[in-house]
């Protein structure tokens, strides 16, 4: 993998008045931002040609820091806004930055329908298992039994497996990695960008200040270590006994397939109508 220099990353940031960023110390969002920019730099995409769209939440604050066409939308609606952009300007590279609450709770409907349409966009979903921006309430990915400010007695609400959800809804590129595996994240994001269709990269991340603190997960480095140990490659995971699988998660590329993409199908329709008219 070609090394992208720190200097190169700075070319993609908006330095004028947006820093320091809003994220807490130890937050993984910066790592994901770095991986995203490095993937873009590697592919040599033009800044003018990228639309980065986000919803509401900690992760969704990302677009303001990058020098692209950036849109910070309503809670849960990033994929719907992105759909509008992509349909009108199919030549643009549309990237959605979202979180577990934004994409799978309030925005669940848009998430599954984006995947169903297989509309060409890349969703980078930063999963920190909690609503960080509002101070730590449970999300659809908060593990069973965990403490949040709205599960003071422990969480009894079952969780979503976001990748399974995306696969079930029809996404054609689905991958999971963690903020610890930053190089892998860069590689998955790059492959997602190159994929034609709806691609999802779920990145498990650390929220040491809120989630970690409430659940005694230790500091940022302890949470990183836990990701390293507990989120393991698909092959390694499959070799484990059912007992050993407990508390572990798979990472890797789950789906990478080709299925008719929405914009291409629409263009085909337009062309067929023009042919029909030509024959009149």
């Amino acid at each position: 993998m070609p090394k992208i220099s720190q200097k190169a990353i700075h070319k993609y940031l908006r330095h004028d008045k947006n820093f320091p960023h809003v994220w807490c110390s130890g937050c993984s969002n910066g790592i994901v931002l770095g991986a995203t920019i490095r993937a873009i730099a590697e592919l040599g995409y033009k800044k003018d040609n990228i639309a980065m769209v986000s919803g509401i939440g900690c992760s969704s604050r990302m677009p303001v820091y990058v020098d692209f066409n950036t849109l910070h939308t309503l809670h849960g609606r990033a994929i719907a806004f992105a759909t509008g952009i992509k349909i009108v300007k199919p030549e643009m590279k549309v990237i959605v930055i979202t979180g577990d609450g934004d994409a799978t709770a309030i925005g669940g409907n848009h998430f599954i329908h984006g995947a169903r349409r297989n509309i060409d966009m890349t969703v980078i979903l930063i999963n920190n298992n909690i609503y960080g921006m509002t101070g730590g309430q449970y999300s659809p990915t908060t593990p069973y039994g965990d403490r949040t400010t709205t599960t003071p007695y422990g969480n009894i609400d079952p969780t979503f497996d976001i990748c399974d959800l995306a696969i079930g809804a029809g996404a054609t590129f689905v991958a999971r990695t963690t903020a610890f595996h930053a190089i892998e994240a860069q590689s998955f994001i790059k492959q997602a960008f190159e994929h034609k269709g709806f691609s999802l990269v779920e990145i498990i991340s650390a929220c040491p200040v809120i989630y970690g603190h409430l659940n005694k997960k230790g500091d940022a480095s302890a949470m990183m270590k836990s990701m390293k140990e507990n989120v393991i490659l698909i092959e390694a995971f499959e070799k484990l006994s059912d007992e050993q699988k407990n508390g572990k998660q798979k990472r890797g590329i789950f789906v990478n397939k080709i299925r008719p993409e929405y914009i291409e199908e629409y263009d085909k329709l337009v062309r067929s109508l023009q042919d029909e008219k030509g024959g009149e």
Partner: protein
Amino acid sequence: MSKNNTIKKREPVLMQGNEAIARGALDAGVNFYAGYPITPSTEIAEIFSYELPRRGGKFIQMEDEIASISAIIGGSLAGAKTMTATSGPGFSLMLEGIGFAKMTETPCVVVNVMRGGPSTGLPTKPSQSDIMQARWGGHGDAPAIVLYPNSVMESYELSIRAVNLAEKYRTCVVLLSDEVLAHMRETVNLPDLSKIKIIDRIKPTIPPEWYKHFPENPKYPMPMASFGEGYRFHVTGLSHDEKGFPTNKAKEISRMMERFRKKIEYYIEDIVQIESFFMEDAKIAIFTAGITARAAKEAVMKARKRGIKVGLLRPLTIWPFPDGAVKKYLGDKKAIIVPELNEGQLSHELKRVMGGIWNYEIRKTKNIVELHKNSGELITPEEIFQTIREVK
């Protein structure tokens, strides 16, 4: 585009109100429509789904109304002229998105074909009960431009105007209709395309590094770049500065809020349209809009035949409310009759302009007679005529 128009020659055609709205929008250049089916607005989506692919435009049926408004805002930022259409329940769902469009000064048009409410209400019956919702429905302070035709021809004209005003003032314009207006058919003579005034958004000509997506000056023109044109601006629903970056500074927030207000206030004469019908010598005035104004006109004619001096003042622009015209035309009337298909939304606003319901002096001299119906039926000319006779 005209070559591909299915109406090949502009001969008189029999047309439904919903169809007229779709035709008007297409003629005004709407090239992206995202919507979700809801009675009684669905025909608008159906026409767009047929027409847009044939014209190289884009149509998509989204998963709900929230997605629809979101998609048209995204599409507008990418450079398209956009529209969606819905009815009461869907409009309620769109309010957050409409607020976002106003906050981010992104042009788009939302059609609300009013039906009876609250809740699911009366999907197949007319109502005028979203007049207040169209203005005050979303959270936060933001002015609104809301138009309301009273015929099929006017549905066509105001649809064009709604698109033009959205592009000109960079905001979300709401076009109201109602179930009867939407579904009734009338013969219309559509003007030649060359005779239609179309306003396109002004593009910036300055270099990107000087570009401010939200210029300080709230006066027209308000140049607006699209995504992918080299300007790389930021758009957020957070309170923002001129460049679009989030801010917590009181001065910058005040300036932003003032801009939203002033860009409508400065151009109120351009935005507000009213029709005055036999008002010159009228002693009694009727004040109403949309489908109810049709009945009112007939009542005026009937009363005039009997020598009763009555006239009709009808706002085509409901919001901003035509305060000036109301004061000018209605200030000296003996009585004002306000028939409407709700529990007093236009009349509430009228009372505000006429001096407030608690002002005794005004109450004594200005007799505002309200005529409400919220049962899904229209107010008939006869009912208005009877009211005229009672107040005479």
